């Protein structure tokens, strides 16, 4: 590579052959890197899943029995009814979340909304806390003793209504993250042309803004749909007896130790992921880069009505989200809800309770830091290769598909799959079992998809011409990555790191099977304390986790701000 570059001034006439030589070497090197990435992803996602899902074709003794489990499943009416329930809840939640998140993302990126930073912070809040926290506060708000239970007009929170509210609450930041990325890079020239051609603002919205964000919208919709359909936390706590696919897995695996039937339900849950993949391919073909190399930066014009409307909307949305969280903070301070409402800080003395105490808290911070650091690097670099590498089409498609899979795997299934795969005596990797490393790997795998999609969404907005230009300038592609793609996408990379950190702090479903005696986690101890009836201390630990995530997010934005000022001057020009 270096020889080819160095030879450039000496023999300017042989540019053509030297380009092919350089490009192919460059490609091979990056292709090799991608192959390593793919193998890692196979070991962290595909192989464990196979270890679990193959059980759907076996009986309890482990003999192959074909589709018998699936037939038994289809003949159990209450299990089949779960499919309809799950689809209804997931569709409803997706429509609500995408609508709200799109308006919010639009307000944040395309209007002159005051205090954007504060709004972003507040709207990300639901992702900062373990899912038990909104569940506790929904019960305190709308339960039979709830302070505003009349708002439900006599309907019970324990059922579909509660599941939809709870699901919307916790999936909202996921959708927001993708949509903000999708809307933040745009080409000012398009808007100039639109206004020069006399298009009305509404027409401009539908012909420029919306198509530009189409890829992000479709990704976000599928992400929310799949997150809701695979989540068991909300339906378990607040769903009462409303059966859904994810709670069926819980019943089969935890209630009855029937791994085979649990695997059957997991296979059914994979269908949305395959749909996501197909829809993604379809959307990709129709997406053109918004940020071409000739793009001009765009600043929101002054539109008093739109700005005011968006401000009002954002105030309402933020108030709702903060209200739910405030209720949970209150819950952590109350002595005994609802009969002794005096406030105290005694619930924060975790070493007096059990469930891991402060040690679990520090373990969680270590785990989250490793996950954010290694995860963001691995995910972004590989997303870059998937998006910008020439050739290796089947390899890239396979990588993309496996990157989308984890989204559709309920955490519980992933955790079990990790036991089956990594604990097998024949697996050379079994030394990882019961260590901190496996918690980190599992968490990166668990949250891979949203990060991958965010990275891809950001990268898609960079014109491939950058690569073409750098190739013709004989710069190695890695250099283009380092000089152009990485700096341009830096907000997205930091966002991915922050996202991984907070999810690692709050996740329960997969790691609950994988922690060991010296790697107890704070999020698991929240669940255990709640299980032991210590609701207020559980809420207190959840609040601690939330504050930690808040600090991490602040650091992320501070760091982002510093780096942005150095690398993203073109944005504010």
């Amino acid at each position, binding site marked *: 590579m270096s020889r080819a570059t160095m030879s450039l001034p000496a023999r300017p006439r042989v540019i053509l052959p030297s380009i092919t030589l350089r490009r192919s070497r460059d490609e091979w090197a990056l292709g090799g890197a991608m192959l390593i990435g793919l193998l890692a992803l196979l070991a962290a996602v595909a192989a464990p899943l196979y270890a679990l899902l193959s059980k759907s074709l076996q009986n309890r003794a482990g003999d192959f029995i074909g589709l018998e489990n699936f037939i038994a499943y289809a003949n*159990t*009416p*209450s299990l089949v*009814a779960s499919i309809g*329930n799950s689809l209804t809840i997931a569709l409803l939640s997706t429509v609500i979340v995408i609508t709200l998140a799109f308006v919010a993302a639009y307000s944040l990126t395309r209007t002159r909304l005051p205090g954007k930073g504060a709004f972003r912070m507040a709207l990300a809040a639901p992702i900062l806390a373990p899912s038990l926290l909104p569940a506790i506060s929904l*019960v305190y708000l709308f*339960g*039979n*003793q709830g302070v505003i239970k009349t708002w439900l007009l006599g309907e019970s929170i*324990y*059922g579909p209504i509660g599941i939809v509210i709870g699901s919307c609450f916790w999936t909202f930041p996921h959708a927001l993250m993708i949509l903000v990325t999708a809307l933040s890079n745009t080409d000012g020239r398009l808007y100039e042309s639109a206004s020069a051609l006399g298009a009305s603002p509404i027409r401009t919205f539908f012909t420029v803004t919306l198509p530009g964000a189409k890829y992000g919208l479709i990704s976000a919709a599928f992400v929310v749909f799949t997150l809701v359909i695979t989540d068991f936390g909300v339906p*378990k706590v607040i769903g*009462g*007896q*409303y*059966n859904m696919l994810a*709670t069926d897995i*819980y*019943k089969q*695996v*935890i*209630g*009855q*130790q029937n*791994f085979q039937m649990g695997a059957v339900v997991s296979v059914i849950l994979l269908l949305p992921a395959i749909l996501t993949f197909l829809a993604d391919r379809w959307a990709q073909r129709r997406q053109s880069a918004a940020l071409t190399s000739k793009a001009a930066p765009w600043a929101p014009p002054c539109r008093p009505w739109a700005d005011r409307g968006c401000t009002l909307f954002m105030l309402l949305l933020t108030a709702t989200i903060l209200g739910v969280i405030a209720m949970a903070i209150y819950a952590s301070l109350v*002595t*005994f*809800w*609802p*009969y*002794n409402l005096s406030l105290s800080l005694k619930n924060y003395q975790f070493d007096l*309770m*059990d*469930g*891991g105490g402060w040690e679990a808290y520090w373990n969680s911070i270590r785990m989250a830091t490793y996950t954010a650091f290694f995860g963001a690097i691995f995910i972004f670099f590989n997303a870059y290769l998937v998006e910008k590498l020439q050739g290796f089409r089947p390899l890239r498609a396979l990588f993309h598909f496996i990157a989308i899979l984890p989204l559709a795997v309920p955490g519980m299934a992933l955790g*079990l799959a990790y*036991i*089956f795969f990594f*604990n*097998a*005596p024949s697996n050379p990797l*079994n030394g990882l*079992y*019961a260590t901190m490393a496996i918690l980190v790997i599992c968490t990166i795998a668990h949250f891979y998809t949203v990060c991958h999609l965010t990275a891809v969404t950001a990268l898609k907005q960079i014109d491939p011409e950058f690569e073409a230009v750098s190739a013709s300038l004989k710069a190695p592609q890695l250099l283009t990555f380092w000089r152009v793609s990485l700096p341009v996408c830096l907000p997205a990379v930091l966002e991915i790191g922050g996202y991984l950190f907070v999810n690692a702090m709050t996740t329960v479903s997969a790691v*609950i*099977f994988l*922690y*060991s*005696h*010296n790697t107890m986690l704070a999020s*698991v101890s929240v669940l*255990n*304390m709640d*299980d*032991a*009836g210590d*609701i207020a201390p559980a809420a207190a630990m959840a609040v601690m986790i939330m504050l930690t995530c808040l600090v991490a997010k602040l650091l992320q934005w501070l760091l982002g701000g510093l780096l942005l000022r150095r690398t993203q001057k073109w944005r504010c020009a």
Partner: protein
Amino acid sequence: MTLKYLLKRVSVLAGAALCSLAAQAATTELTVYTAIEAEDLKKYAARFNEEHPDIKINWVRDSTGIITAKLLAEKENPQADVVWGLAATSLMLLNDEGMLQSYKPKGYDALSPKFRDNNAAPVWTGMDAWMAAVCFNTVEAEKLNLPKPTSWKDLTKPEYQGHIIMPNPNSSGTGFLDVSSWLQMFGEERGWQYMSDLHQNISRYTHSGSKPCKMAAAGETPIGISFAFRAAKSKKDGAPLDIIFPQEGLGWDMEATAIVKGSKKMDAAQTLVDWTVSRKANETYNEGYAVVAMPGVAKPVQYFPENAEALMIDNNFTWAAANRERILAEWQKRFDGKSEAK
């Protein structure tokens, strides 16, 4: 730096290294899986270490369902040395998979036969009983004008309609314990009839066995079918609860102990299991549980009835284990399918 000084430093270092090696040799670390309440873990380990300071217990604790699933999933390469404090029904399941090592601990014969695996080569030993109870919130009941029930039959009266919560037996061991006890007490036919009547009054089924009592404690429901240990704890925390032990009899399970087959620390594991059936261990269990495995040890525990042991039904664990799948499928067909309609 003189040679003498250097030598001194080296010898100090070597000595330190030797000491730490010796310390390591002296302590055996046992990985113990458990579902015991988290607050009891430190106490149990400390009492054991008073007599056996050379064995360090590394606890892995979670709820019964998770720990059982984890143990089964690790079958090919077990990580646990000992299971101390898991439902006997779960241990029987593990034994069916051939995962447990038979061992007859010293002092085995001193345990009440109810708490023993009465096989020639016993595999598990019981610790304490863990029995059903009904949590009754007096404040909410007064608001709704509900009389206090005293029997299982009372719970089917129409005035309780929509006021009772119980665990789903398909998700929760406590739920199954209730269902299995009703079938054993009332007989199959009348048992199912009883559950149909009860179903009319149930507002919903939960996934966790402690949840119904927690919800009763928080006033979310006036009546929650749960288990006694949780009920006593909520009452101690200040919940306005009456704990009802229905007079027909109580379903129960026991917390039990066993050695995992393939443990590389068999000596230490046996030492631990010997201790878990000792008098001192039983006295420790008695601090939270009214009925323990060693006869004559138990003193009354706050909020538990004095005749707790007499209320426990003659639970046929073998029958329950053998019929579990059939019972759960039948339950699901009868009650789970139409749960939406409510």
